[in-house]
């Protein structure tokens, strides 16, 4: 049986993301005001897992680190088709950078049990570092391919995948167990089904804290993070805007004229 782990992250809804502010005291993000949703590319990771399960005998475990509200994200993955859910939640995990996040997730994944394939979204919409997948791989001492856009061969222990590379791709051969971070191009994620939501009600979410992972508070969260936010500043614009008024036609005409006068309308 193929043991698949999907790493899911609850992120602030990108539609409302501009409302998020930085806490001036702790210099971490205050996320509570904005609804949390499943990170877009984690949906692609989840979809990839479901398709693997449709093709062969597999078990999908989904794992997330975050505040208790992130449990909803795990629940969403269960409704999509994951078999079991794990939430790593502890005040000590707060303020983690990518390194500490990857470390904590790696410890959680080890605790779940044997794994063959670990799937992550290539990046999260809020942090955008892309580091968590590769660093989970490092902490688990297994290989990783980032930005996977196509799974070419996945029958045996040696998989072949195509990874995005700007214009073009690289073809990689990788021995399981391995981590794959996936891009949007990999698949079209399915939407939640009613029957899936019903089935998910029976599935349990296991919640683990610092003590469950057997870690010290120094190795997780803000304390376990090599990087910290040292300063916040505002960016002052050097431009003064002229709002063009009038009817739609007027506005378009004025704009074209102004751009032509400035000599930028080739």
């Amino acid at each position, binding site marked *: 049986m193929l043991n698949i782990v999907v790493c899911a992250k609850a992120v602030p809804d990108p539609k409302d993301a501009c409302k998020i502010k930085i806490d001036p005291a702790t210099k971490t993000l205050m996320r509570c005001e904005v609804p949390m949703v499943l990170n877009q590319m984690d949906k692609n990771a989840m979809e990839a897992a479901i398709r693997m399960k449709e093709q062969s005998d597999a078990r999908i475990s989904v794992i997330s680190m975050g505040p208790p509200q992130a449990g909803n994200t795990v629940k969403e993955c269960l409704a999509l088709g994951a078999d079991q859910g794990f939430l790593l939640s502890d005040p000590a995990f707060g303020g983690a950078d990518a390194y500490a996040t990857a470390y904590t997730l790696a410890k959680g994944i080890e605790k779940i049990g044997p794994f063959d394939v670990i799937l992550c979204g290539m990046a999260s919409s809020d942090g955008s570092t892309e580091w968590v997948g590769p660093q989970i791989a490092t902490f688990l001492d297994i290989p990783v391919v980032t930005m996977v856009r196509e799974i070419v061969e996945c029958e045996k222990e040696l998989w072949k995948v195509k990874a995005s590379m700007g214009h073009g791709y690289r073809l990689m051969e990788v021995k399981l167990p391995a981590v794959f971070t996936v891009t949007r191009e990999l698949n079209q994620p399915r939407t939640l089904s009613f029957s899936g939501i019903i089935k998910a009600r029976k599935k349990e979410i296991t919640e683990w804290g610092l003590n469950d992972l057997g870690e010290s508070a120094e190795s997780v969260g803000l304390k376990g993070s090599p990087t910290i936010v040292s300063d916040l500043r505002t960016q002052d614009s050097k431009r003064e805007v002229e*709002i063009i008024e009038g009817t739609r036609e007027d506005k378009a005409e004025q704009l074209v004229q102004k751009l032509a006068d400035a000599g930028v309308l080739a």
Partner: protein
Amino acid sequence: MPVKCSLGIDKSQAFPADLPIPGSGPELFYASRITHHASRITHHASRFTFHVSRITFHVSRFTFHVSRFTFHASERIIMEHTYGPVWVIGEQVNCQVVTVSLQLVGRARTLADELNTSVEVVLLGNHMTDEHVQPLFAAGADRIYMGNDPALELYQPELFTEMIVKLAGDRRPEIMLIGSTFMGRELAPLVAARLDTGLTAHCIDLVLDKDKILEQIIPAYGGLISIVCPEKRPQMATVSKGVFPKPDPDETRTGEIVMLDVPTGMTQRINTLEIIREEPEGVSLESAPIVVAGGAGAGDIEGWQKIEELAKILNAGLGSTRPAVDEGWIELETMIGQSGKMVSPELYIGVGLSGELQHMVGIVGAQVMVAVNNDSKAPVFEQVDYGIVDDCREFVPVLIEKIREHQEKQLTC
């Protein structure tokens, strides 16, 4: 007994091994041992005193057991701090050093001069000659660690990581800069995790603070934030092409090339079979005189197609924001901003996007900037020259029509 002691490296916990002993006299030996311990204690007491270049430790309250001797450190120890090299992980395509590597060497030179240290580049590939690496010297490199081997012809994640990690253990760089290329974005987190240090993604500026700590600037949440890695070394950052200017080459500069051996007997669990580079279609974003960028405001694929049409009639490069990419309207390669492309057009038109700094930092030195957004309070209107408050789905077709009329007029007269 004031003891002056020079230490060759940063003594952060990233490299807890015994230090090489500079100098030869017994005084220096003990002093170096003591400062090693003292710095660890001071380091716990206050993280900042540890990093200033010249510090005085008052360590009268501690007793150190140094080798066979007990040293009552009631005296003052003056420690002179010297820094490890500033590193750039170079990248080449068909033996040609890529632009971002040269740009990073340019910035590394500035940082290294401030730290009074050297710039070293690690460059792995095959069939490279002295001529191929001369641009790195001309850009400011002092030393190039070159791996030239058939095994390094293609980027191999495990082999590259291993070679860089091993060399970093020997050279102990203070700073390590990596281009945000497909290779750099994978390699950087692997190297950082192996070296047990921090890594900042896609910086838009890198400066040293008053304590000579690297401030790694990224846009976030309507402002800029500075990220530091105060204790672990090296301080690592990835940077996109175009963030720093390409330095004026100084062809008189030369440096040292050190050849690297490829480790043998390493079992690689991952293998790059081939790398296919395709020619991008359409107008290149990075060199286009006009860039049209679309965001979530397009609403749906029909709305997006109107923005595409606008770009087409202007013969503009078509860029995007992350929400547009997430919606699946356009491929990731068109994303402009911190984790995407940097563009510097004469004219930039942002359509249906709010003006998040993560996107806006990707537009460098545009002559004229225009925004179309239905929300008059959108931050984008603080960052452009001309603003149109309107639903882009309605406005763009009208604008296309007016541009067409203008173009026809141009042709007839």
